[in-house]
């Protein structure tokens, strides 16, 4: 029989497992480590103005591909609020019939940097308007444009040359002349558009922890092909710093106000760190409305149940490893996994003590049942009830002595305990107490190792958040099922055969 399909299957499982995990990390931003933290920014825009009568205020909302919006809220007592989205981006609109005096409106957004620093969301090219310069400035502008044009190769390098010129007016008299009339950003944009380069002014916020009363700064975005490039007209440099939040990219103004006067928008911001996983989940739940099928959409109770169940493949893998590669024997193939699952609830020490207490008491009571000459099925059933009684008694005792750890004893699977007691009891009768300790100890050892493998944060995190890991576990189990080499304990067992003769 050809082994190729088998190895292909293994490869497929491992590749799709790793692929899916990578996808989860890259696209859904699930962190590889459970303790990872993620920076988030809380930015508050405060709009103040004086009003008398009906007012409509429209604020541009942040549209930056480098930041993901986690949540947003607007505080505006007495105002009707609506969020709209059109070609010029998202906007919040506050309306009221009757406002008088000084007014304050707040908009708060939680934003997460996502590391996506390309501005490639241009659906259509900006239209370049026909601009007319004032008499006298026209020649200056043409001179500046001509100089930058000569020293550049494309829109992008042309914009950079222009930005440099605008940022250093002392080197060019023409620029100084133009700056007397226009703001640097407006001038740069005007020069670019005059030369036929698609560009626009964007308003951005420098994010800095704890800053208040900040204003938006004007930057110039130049379109070259599908990508947009940002230029800082004040420093004459290209590129965006990490802590720059583009607030308004499309449309005309940040704030449009009708019915009010003396308006201003200021921004405050706080940097915050929160668990990366929670942030990723919040971001996914925002997207989940479209996708729908996600474990995280389940009710919390089912989620926590699944969390437990997803540990089982890990436990099974450990048991397969210990049996096939190490050669440990266990009483009942997967009994150790179930005991280990109970240990997760009880914690190790209480679990061990509880397990030994229950089994010891069970063995004593079971020895009486031995004398009754019962059918196996009724004897096992009787043991099940005895185990229940023992568990109830210990819980009661533990509670009365104030040992709250003892209460978790109820998590042990009763049927498994009953069978363990029955097997141990038969073993005791047939092969004596020594064998009971050897086999019982072996099973308990495997259970403890399985518990240690399952009950750590990294494994829990991976088992639930990176489901691809289960495909890899499956592949590993399949590969181990093909292992024909020696088990570790066989190396000890067959040691006399390996010794040199003579």
């Amino acid at each position: 029989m050809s082994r190729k399909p088998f190895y292909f299957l293994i490869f497929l499982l491992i590749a799709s497992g790793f692929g899916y995990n990578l996808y989860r990390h890259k696209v859904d931003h699930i962190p590889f480590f459970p303790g990872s933290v993620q920076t988030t920014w809380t930015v508050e825009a405060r709009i103040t103005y004086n009003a008398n009568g009906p007012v409509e205020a429209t604020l541009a909302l942040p549209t930056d591909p480098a930041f993901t919006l986690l949540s947003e809220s607007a505080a505006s007592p007495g105002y009707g609020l609506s969020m709209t989205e059109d070609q010029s981006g998202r906007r919040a609109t506050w309306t009221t019939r009757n406002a008088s005096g000084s007014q304050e409106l707040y908009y708060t957004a939680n934003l997460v940097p996502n590391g996506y620093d390309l501005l490639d969301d241009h659906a259509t090219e900006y239209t370049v308007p026909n601009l007319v310069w004032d008499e006298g400035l026209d020649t200056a502008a043409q001179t500046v444009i001509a100089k930058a044009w000569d020293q550049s190769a494309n829109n992008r390098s042309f914009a950079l040359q222009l930005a440099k010129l605008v940022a250093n007016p002392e080197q060019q008299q023409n620029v100084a002349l133009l700056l007397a009339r226009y703001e640097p950003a407006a001038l740069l944009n005007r020069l670019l558009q005059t030369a036929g380069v698609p560009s626009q002014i964007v308003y951005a916020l420098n994010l800095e922890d704890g800053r208040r009363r900040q204003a938006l700064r004007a930057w110039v975005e130049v379109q070259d092909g599908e990508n947009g490039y940002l230029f800082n007209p004040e420093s004459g440099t290209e590129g965006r710093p990490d802590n720059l939040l583009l607030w308004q990219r499309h449309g005309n103004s940040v704030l449009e106000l009708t019915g009010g006067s003396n308006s201003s928008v200021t921004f405050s911001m706080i940097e915050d760190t929160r668990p990366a996983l929670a942030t990723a989940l919040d971001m996914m739940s925002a997207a989940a409305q479209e996708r729908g099928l996600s474990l995280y959409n389940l009710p919390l109770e089912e989620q926590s149940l699944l969390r437990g169940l997803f540990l089982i493949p890990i436990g099974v893998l450990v048991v397969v490893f210990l049996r096939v590669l190490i050669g440990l024997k266990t009483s009942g193939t997967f009994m150790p996994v179930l005991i280990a699952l109970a240990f997760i609830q009880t914690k190790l020490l209480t679990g061990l003590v509880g397990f030994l207490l229950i089994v010891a008491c069970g063995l004593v009571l079971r020895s009486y049942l031995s004398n009754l000459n019962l059918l196996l099925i009724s004897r096992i059933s009787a043991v099940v009830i005895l185990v229940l009684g023992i568990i109830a008694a210990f819980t009661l005792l533990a509670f009365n002595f104030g040992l709250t750890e003892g209460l978790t004893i109820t998590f042990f699977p009763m049927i498994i305990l009953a069978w363990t007691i029955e097997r141990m009891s038969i073993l005791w009768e047939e092969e004596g107490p020594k064998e009971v300790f050897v086999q019982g100890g072996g099973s308990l050892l495997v259970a403890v190792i399985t518990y240690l493998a399952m009950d750590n944060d990294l494994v829990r995190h991976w088992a639930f958040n990176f489901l691809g890991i289960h495909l890899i576990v499956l592949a590993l189990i399949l590969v181990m099922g093909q292992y024909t080499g020696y088990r570790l304990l066989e190396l000890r067992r067959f040691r006399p055969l390996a010794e040199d003769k003579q």
Partner: protein
Amino acid sequence: MIFCDPRRLRSRGIMGMNQRNISYIGRYNPRSLYKQVDDKLITKQLALKAEIATPDLISVISEQHEISDLAQRLAGQTGFCIKPAQGSGGKGILVITKVEDGKFFKPSGGEVSLSDMERHCSNILAGLFSLGGKNDVAVIEALIRFDPVFEGISYEGVPDIRLIVFKGFPVMGMLRCSTHASDGKANLHQGAVGIGVDIANGQAIRAVQYDEPVQLHPDTSKDLHAVQVPHWDRLLELASGCYEMSGLGYLGTDMVLDSERGPLLLELNARPGLAIQIANDQGLLPRLRKIEALGDQTFSVEERIAKAKEWFGGQAPN
């Protein structure tokens, strides 16, 4: 060093458990035939058909209500053993060697009451000793009156002869003798002594207990290396014939020598253990490969035994 070098084991052709399961049991023993050897009653019927001698059947208890007839069915017997038909690893075998005034005695002298035996039968029927806890039947067989040549090398129990039969070729053999520690049972992991024997003539090569070499029987101090198994050729024929009878390629045959009836087939095992390698101080793999190299040719029992003797005999430890 607690562990030995796996390369040394490999060079000596020692077979490990995983390899046995995948390369031999999995490959040569069709699942559908397991029942024939896992159920001792079926094995017995097959053996009857193939004219292979087995211990006398006293009674079979297959229903719970039959247990009340137990005393009646055992009337007049002076020694017998009760086994689960589908037991594994020697579990649930109760041997009674002496019956006096309605009291039953184990080989160790321990007394067993009738109600103990009834409970034992009830446990067997409920499947306590069978693989996977399936319902089972209790088989009561006549006791083996063991051959006096084995006097002193087996304590409180019948020695049995285990032969590994691969595609009908007897490849390795050992004599298993019970000890006080094994409570009259011939299972090595329970403390029985395993004596590796030469395939050519049944002469002892070496003896082990608990996987360690021994020279003398721990209870009787008899020299184990001096043992010569009688009726050796008949034993080889019996074992080799089990291949056709069961259809299993990789087989462990357990046989006993009865003082009156000669070699008897006790049971077959589709998953024979690996301790035989330690008892023989030889790896199974070179022998198994030699036979695998023959391909799909068929040989008669006589040819197989002749070849096995030629290839595997006389390999005394160097």
